[in-house]
């Protein structure tokens, strides 16, 4: 979908006709927030910004991940060759009853992951099963609960914003199965888990069996965190009159500026002046992920939804209804400046396409939030 938008923008850069140029100059003098030329320029610049991002950041993470995965296999194989000393498993106390979140992984598959809320206690047990006939000598066993932000463009560096440790065992030997209950009570997990394009926020339990002469044995267990927001106290509608002088003049209204994830966007577009032949109109939901800060800010936009709301050319006075259900789309709440590392914002983009395939659009930020 992103491709479609970009190719459209690219096409326009290739052939800026004389007429378009003229219209550009004229539109600069208009006061209207929406003008095809100015917006095209801004969208063009956005597209140009985005492209290096795609080239430099989105490819390496994928590459690294694959490399990582290969490394783990190799590692396990080597261990196996030397003989795996033990297997480590981490189980949650209420695994049977706990809700699970379906999470999309990088390879496109969805997996189910245990789901926690912000202030919950994370309770369970760690089981260490030595391979029969082998003993595990260690200098201590510990479990950590980590909240990490991983920025892909930063060579996959991790920032731990939460780190809790429980010592499970003093140095010694494990000869047979041993289980260690653990409990992190009412953990402060203020951020939600998030898998973005350039950034990942994850929560993980990490068990480390420290060994003095061999590499430590480490086991991870991911879990997912979601937080509910209170209902917004103020939730104004978005209403605006936009246009291009003597060409197109519309008024749009979205009933709210803040939506929960299963909400419905209700609104209408009122045509005040139509002098161009519009072919269709659609509403896009765009997500903009900003990572880094200052001059090193990277923005990544993706179109999550393209929802056609009008087919054909309206005339003056027509009022076109909008009703867009948000539930089918994979949305998250709006994240603002998470740990000074990243933000995720959502926009409604109203796009009108004329018969020459010129696109006129107006983007409005909406706030997404999660309710119980």
């Amino acid at each position, binding site marked *: 979908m992103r491709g479609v938008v970009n190719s459209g923008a690219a096409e326009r850069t290739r052939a800026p006709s004389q007429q378009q140029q003229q219209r550009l100059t004229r539109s600069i003098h208009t006061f209207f927030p929406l003008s095809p030329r100015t917006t095209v320029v801004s969208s063009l610049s956005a597209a140009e910004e985005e492209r290096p991002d795609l080239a430099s950041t989105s490819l390496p993470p994928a590459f690294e991940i694959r490399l990582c995965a290969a490394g783990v296999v190799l590692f396990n194989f080597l261990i196996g060759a030397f003989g795996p000393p033990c297997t480590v498993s981490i189980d949650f106390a209420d695994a049977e009853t706990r809700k699970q979140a379906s999470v999309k992984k990088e390879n496109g598959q969805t997996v189910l992951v245990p789901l926690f809320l912000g202030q919950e206690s994370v309770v369970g047990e760690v089981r260490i099963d030595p391979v029969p006939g082998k003993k595990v000598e260690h200098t201590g066993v510990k479990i950590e609960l980590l909240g990490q932000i991983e920025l892909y463009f930063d060579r996959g560096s991790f920032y731990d914003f939460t780190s809790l440790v429980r010592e499970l065992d003093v140095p010694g030997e494990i000869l047979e199965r041993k289980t260690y209950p653990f409990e992190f009570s009412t953990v402060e997990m203020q951020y939600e888990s998030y898998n973005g394009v350039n950034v990942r926020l994850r929560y993980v339990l990490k068990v480390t069996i420290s060994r003095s002469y061999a590499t430590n044995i480490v086991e991870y267990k991911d879990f997912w965190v979601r937080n509910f927001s209170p209902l917004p106290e103020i939730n104004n509608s978005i209403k605006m009159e936009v246009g291009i002088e003597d060409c197109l003049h519309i008024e749009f209204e979205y009933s709210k500026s803040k939506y929960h994830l299963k909400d419905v966007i209700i609104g209408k577009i009122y045509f005040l002046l139509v002098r161009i*032949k519009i*072919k*269709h109109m659609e509403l896009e939901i765009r997500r903009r992920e900003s990572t880094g800060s200052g001059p090193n800010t990277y923005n990544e936009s993706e179109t999550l*939804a*393209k*929802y*056609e*709301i*009008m*087919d*054909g*050319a*309206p*005339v003056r006075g*027509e*009022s*076109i*209804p909008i*009703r867009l*259900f948000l*539930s*089918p789309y994979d949305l998250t709440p709006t994240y603002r400046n998470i740990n000074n590392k990243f933000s995720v914002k959502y926009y409604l983009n109203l796009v009108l396409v004329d*018969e020459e395939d010129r696109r006129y659009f107006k983007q409005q930020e909406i706030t997404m939030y999660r309710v119980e």
Partner: protein
Amino acid sequence: MQAPEQEAVTSAEEQEKWLADAMALVQHHAFYMHRALDANNIRDVLKFSAQMLSELRTSKLSPQKYYELYMRTFDELRQLEVFFREESKRGRTNADIYELVQHAGNILPRLYLLCTVGSVYIKSKEAPAKDVLKDLVEMSRGVQHPIRGLFLRSYLSQISRDKLPDVGSPYEGEGGNVMDAVEFVLQNFTEMNKLWVRMQHQGPVRDKEKREKERSELRDLVGKNLHVLSQLEGVDLEMYRDLVLPRVLEQVVNCKDELAQYYLMDCIIQVFPDDFHLQTLETLLGACPQLQPTVDIKTVMSQLMERLSKYAAASPDVLYEFQQVDAFSKFSQSVVEVIEAQPDMPLVGAVSLHVSLLTFVLRVYVDRLDYVDLVLGACVKKLEGKGKVKDSKATKQLVALLSAPLEKYKDVVVVLKLSNYARVMEHLDYETNKVMAVVLIQSVLSNSTMITVDEEDFQEEQNLVARLVHMLVNDDPEQMFQILTTARKHFAQGGPRRLQYTLPPLVFEALKLVRSLQAQDLPEEGEGSGSVSLKKVFQFLHQTVEALAMIPAAELSLRLYLQCAEAAGDCGLEPVAYEFFTQAFVLYEEEISDSKAQVTALQLIIGTLQRTRVFGVENRDTLTHKATGYSAKLLKKPDQCRAVYACSHLFWVEDGGTTDGERVLLCLKRALRIANAAQQMSSATRGTSGPMTLFVEILNKYLYYFEKGTMIQSTVIQGLLELIVTDMQSESTTHDPEVDAFLASTVRYIQFQKQKGDSIAERYASIQVQ
């Protein structure tokens, strides 16, 4: 995906190909949809049905081809509807499905699906019908493309038809009431019409004609809504009058589109019941002048009048209602307004509107002749200042206008009573006027009009017929003669009562023909049998007057004979003139017995004879002798006297006629004798002698001839004058101031002549006056 609109118009072959492609794709997607239906997999069902419906997003197909595609998908959607119904039985709520289908990204498939689910939703009664309907009709606004929008809304109309919360419908009550139903249909209608009208602006101007044709093919999609409205049980007269009609008309007027306005007005008239129309005439007709000037409103109105008159004919008991709502004045008012509103309307349009109105009146208000006349009057008003109508179509309509009452009443008398009838006829050109006259006459004859009105009316009517005859004009004498002959043939069947009115104008028209023939200097004898000649015309005249004489209408015939005689004389046809005189005399002798009539007849004979100079001595003598003879045989002395002195003129015809002074004198003397005798009779019977009128009259005659010739001696005048003066002074004589004045002015004349100082004065010198 969406071809530019310019390419939408393409050759038939391409259309066929595109349709075939689209059909194949529909089939393809439908196959997978069916598989999903069988597997009860709602996600796949929605996915494939949306893909199938996406084929309807094409812009390439002409409306006809698009319709075929639509029908194909329509069949598939029926199965989908069954599936949704079963799905709701399997536990999924209709509300859920209703939301689910709205996840479709493209609007057209989404709305088709939404309508399909909506239909099931309403049927389940899980939501009020009105809410679902309102939502559907509102959401459909998203499709603004004319053809796609029209078909989508047509689909909505189709699936909702049996689910409207009409009175008596299972969806009434919680599902809403008839107002909701009406509101829904009206809204859908309004939007459809807007889309339909907008269709004409799609694409290049050069294809406009073709587009209008295509557009016309889609009109029934729009009109169907009106049909649905008319089928609603709950739409009674009140609701129709207060809500439905005003809203529909508002849309009709506001759309400002010729094609739509014409079609929709026609549609309104056809689908709603007659009594509704009758009760809302004012509103309906009020819209007519507001339509575009190019709309063929006359046809629309004609149709309305046609319908209403049929309605009236079918159930005579509604005639009262017609009167109550004053249908006539509303129609006639509207006709005037429409003509005013459409200044470019050709004359033929205006006239045919009147024809329609007249037809309406003739059917509905059979006994209202005044209405008929009003219609004609209105038409006259329209024609005012236009002179003769030249446009042949308009002329035809005028003939229709004039013929309609004839056909209806089958009584020319009734029709001719209409004061504006003739005024309309005045606008016909001569040719058409003739045609019309023939129609009139044929009507008279074919219907054997019976005159039951009183004599005065009868005369008036016959006079109108007579006037008609003067309208028979043809420049070709040949044809003119034919016309006259034909007319006479027809008149002959009218019976004696009418003949005396109808024949005289024929005679005069024939005389007119005589004069024109004379002017052309045609030979007396026609060459060949066909051509007209003077002789033939006179034969015709002779027969005509003879027919009149047979009635009998002696006095009239006599006058006509004399007219003919004079004409014949002018033409130099002595024998013919003689024959006419003979006939006149015969009539005088045989038929005219009333003394007063005799006097008049005789005066006419004398006058005519005096002017007729064609006769030779012998014929002339015979005739004058006869005339003088009759004069002396009159009953009353004064009449005798006057006739005799009048006869004197027969012997004194100047400018080449005879001037027989002797016989003049003879006549005058004889007149004096008779006057004397009259005076004596008077004194013998009443004791007083009568006034001296006759003497003064004779004195004047003397004076006349005294100036003309030499046969009168001044002494004779002197004597007569003195005699008169003496007698006037005598006591036994009755005094009459008129006679005194007459004498006094005569004396003044003499004095005047004496003083003139010319040769006449010299002759007067010897006459002494006191």
